[in-house]
C-alpha cells in the first residue's frame, strides 16, 4: 500500500519518527538516487578504464571534508530532537541553526569544487563519468539547499516555541529529511570519488 501516511491520523508506537509522508518522500528520493547509483555502477562496469582515470582528477579532500561536515550536522539535528523532547525550544533552535550553518559550509566547499571543474572546461558531455559526476553531485547539492530550507522553517517555528515535548513531529520530520541528505552523500562520496 503506497502512501499510507495520507490516511494515518495518529502516531502509533513503533512507527518511524516524524510525519509518515516525509518517509514516503524520503523513500521516493532514495529510489531516485538508488536508480542513479545503479546506473552509475552499470555504466562503470563498461568503462572501467575511463572511470578510473577520470576519478583520479576529482578533489577527494573536499569531498571527504564535506562528508565530515554533513555527518557533524546530522549529529546536531540529533541533539536538536533530543532537546525538544525535553522541552528546550531555544536549545533545539540553536542546534538546528548549527546544522544549517554546516550545510552552508558544504555549499561553499561544493561551489569551489564546481567552479574548478567548470573552469577546466568540464561539462555533461565530456564523458560518461563526468555526466554522472555532475548530475549526481548537482542533484544532491539541490537537496542540501532544500534540506536547509526545511530546517530553517523548523528552526523559526522552534524559536517561536511552536514545538512541545508532546508535539514535535515537525522537528523529527526535518531531522529525518536532513539525515537522508547526509546518507546520500555518505554513499555518493565513496561511490563516485573513491571506489576504483
Amino acid at each position: 500500500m503506497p502512501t499510507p501516511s495520507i490516511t494515518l491520523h495518529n502516531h502509533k508506537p513503533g512507527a518511524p519518527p516524524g510525519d509518515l509522508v516525509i518517509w514516503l518522500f524520503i523513500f521516493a528520493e532514495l529510489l531516485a538516487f538508488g536508480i542513479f547509483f545503479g546506473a552509475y555502477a552499470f555504466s562503470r562496469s563498461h568503462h572501467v578504464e575511463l572511470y578510473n582515470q577520470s576519478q583520479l582528477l576529482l578533489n577527494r579532500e573536499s569531498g571527504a571534508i564535506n562528508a565530515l561536515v554533513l555527518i557533524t550536522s546530522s549529529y546536531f539535528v540529533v541533539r536538536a530532537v533530543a532537546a525538544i523532547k525535553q522541552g528546550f525550544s531555544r536549545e533545539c533552535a540553536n542546534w538546528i541553526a548549527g546544522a544549517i550553518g554546516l550545510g552552508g559550509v558544504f555549499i561553499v566547499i561544493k561551489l569551489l569544487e564546481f567552479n574548478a571543474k567548470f573552469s577546466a572546461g568540464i561539462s555533461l558531455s565530456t564523458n560518461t563519468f563526468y555526466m554522472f559526476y555532475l548530475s549526481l553531485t548537482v542533484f544532491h547539492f539541490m537537496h542540501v539547499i532544500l534540506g536547509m530550507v526545511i530546517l530553517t522553517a523548523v528552526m523559526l517555528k522552534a524559536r517561536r516555541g511552536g514545538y512541545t515535548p508532546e508535539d514535535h513531529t515537525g522537528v523529527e520530520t526535518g531531522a529525518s529529511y536532513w539525515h537522508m541528505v547526509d546518507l546520500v552523500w555518505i554513499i555518493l562520496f565513496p561511490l563516485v570519488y573513491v571506489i576504483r
Partner: protein
Amino acid sequence: MQYQSQKVAMPYFIAAIGLFTGQILFGLIMGLQYVMGDFLFPAIPFNVARMVHTNLLIVWLLFGFMGAAYYMIPEETESELFSPKLALLMFWIFLVAGALTIVGYLLVPYAGLAQMTFNDLWPTMGREFLEQPLPTKLGIVVVALAFLFNISMTILKGRKTSIALVLLMGLWGLAVFFLFSFYNPSNLVLDKYFWWWTVHLWVEGVWELILGSLLAFVLIKVTGVDREIIEKWLYIIVAMTLITGIIGTGHHYYWIGTPEYWQWFGSVFSALEPIPFFMMTVFAFNMVNRRRREHPNKAATLWALGTGVMAFLGAGVWGFLHTLAPVNFYTHGTQITAAHGHMAFYGAYVMVVLTIISYAMPMMRGRAANSEKAQVMEMWAFWLMTVSIVFITLFLTAAGILQVWLQRVSETPLGFMATQDQVTLFYWLREISGVIFLIGLIVYIASFFVEGETKEAA
C-alpha cells in the same frame, strides 16, 4: 446539476462523441490500408487518413476537456460561469474551424492547403500532430485564450478548490506549451527538440493534471469521500507526474541528434513515470472501496476505475516496456510505439473524458443517473471498447516485436516492406479488434437513447 451555466458543457460533449466516431472510422481505414495497401487510393492516401485520425483525436479530447471544465468549474467554485454566451460562441468557432480543417485535409492536396493558408509566410505545417494550417493554429490559440479567460474569471470570483486549481494549471499549461508549435526552425534537430515541448509536455505533463482533476471530481461525486482526502491524493499524484514526467522528456532525446547524457536522464526519470499512474489506480479503487454513498450512476464509477487501470497499463506498463535507452535503440519508431500510443491515449484521456461525460450527461438531462437499462448498455460499451483496445495493443505489440526482430536485431536484416509482409496476420487481427471497438462505440452512442425509469437529480 446545481448551476444553469453548467449546461454549456452539453454541446461540447456531443461534439466530442461525434468527432470520436470520425476518428475511429479513419482508424479503420488506416488499419485496412496496412493490409490492403491500395484501399481508397488515391482518394484518401494513408498520410491524409492518419492526419484526420490523430487530429480528430486531439480536437475531440480538447472538446471533452473544455466541456468538463465548463461542467466542473461552476460546481467547484459555487458560482455561475463568468460568461456562458462566450462559451457557446467559442464552441461554434472551434467546431467550424475544426470541421473546415478536416474538410481541407480531405479535399485539397496537403501542399495546396499549405499554399492556400499562407504556410510560406510562417511555416508550421507538416510536422506530426501539428499538421494544422496556420489559421487553424491561430484559431486554437484564440479559442483557448477565450476559454481560459472564461474559466479563470469564474474561479477568481468563486470558491477556490484544489481540484479547480489543478485543472486551471493543466489548462493554462496546455495553452502555453501549444505555443511551441509555432516554432519551426530549419534545423531539424532543434525542430524536433522543441516539438516535444508541445507533444510530450502535453500528454506526459499538463494533460495529466487535467486527467487527475477530472478523475478527482468524479470520485468525490460518486463516492462521497471527504474532499480533503481526495485533494491530497490529487496533489501527490500530479506532483509525481511532473517530477518524473518533465525530465522524462529525455526519453525522446535518445536518437535525434541530442547529447548522449539524455539516454541516462531519459531512462532514469521515465522509468519512474509509471509511479503516478500506479498511484492513480490505487487512488481510484481506494476511494471507491471507502465510499460513503451508493451513487446510482454505476457506469460512471466503472469508467473512473477503468481509467485508473487502463492508464496504468497503457501509459505506465507499455511505456516502461520500451523507455529504457538500450531497449528503445531497437524499438524506436516501430509498431511497439504504436501499440503504446493506442492504449495510453485510450486508457488515460479517452476514458477520463468518457468518465466525466458518463457522470455529467445524465445530470444535464435532469436525472442523477440513467436508467438501469441504459447503464447496462453503457457498461457493455465499456467492456467492448476496453477489451478491443487491449487486443489492438497486444496485436500491435506482437507485430512490433516481430518487426524489431526481423528488421533490426537479425544478422541478415530484412528491408522495411519485406518485414511488413511478414506481420500481415497481426495487422488483420488488429483490424478485426478495431471493428469490435467500433461496435462498442455504436453501443455506447445508442445507450444515450435508451429510455427507462430514472430518478430525479438531487
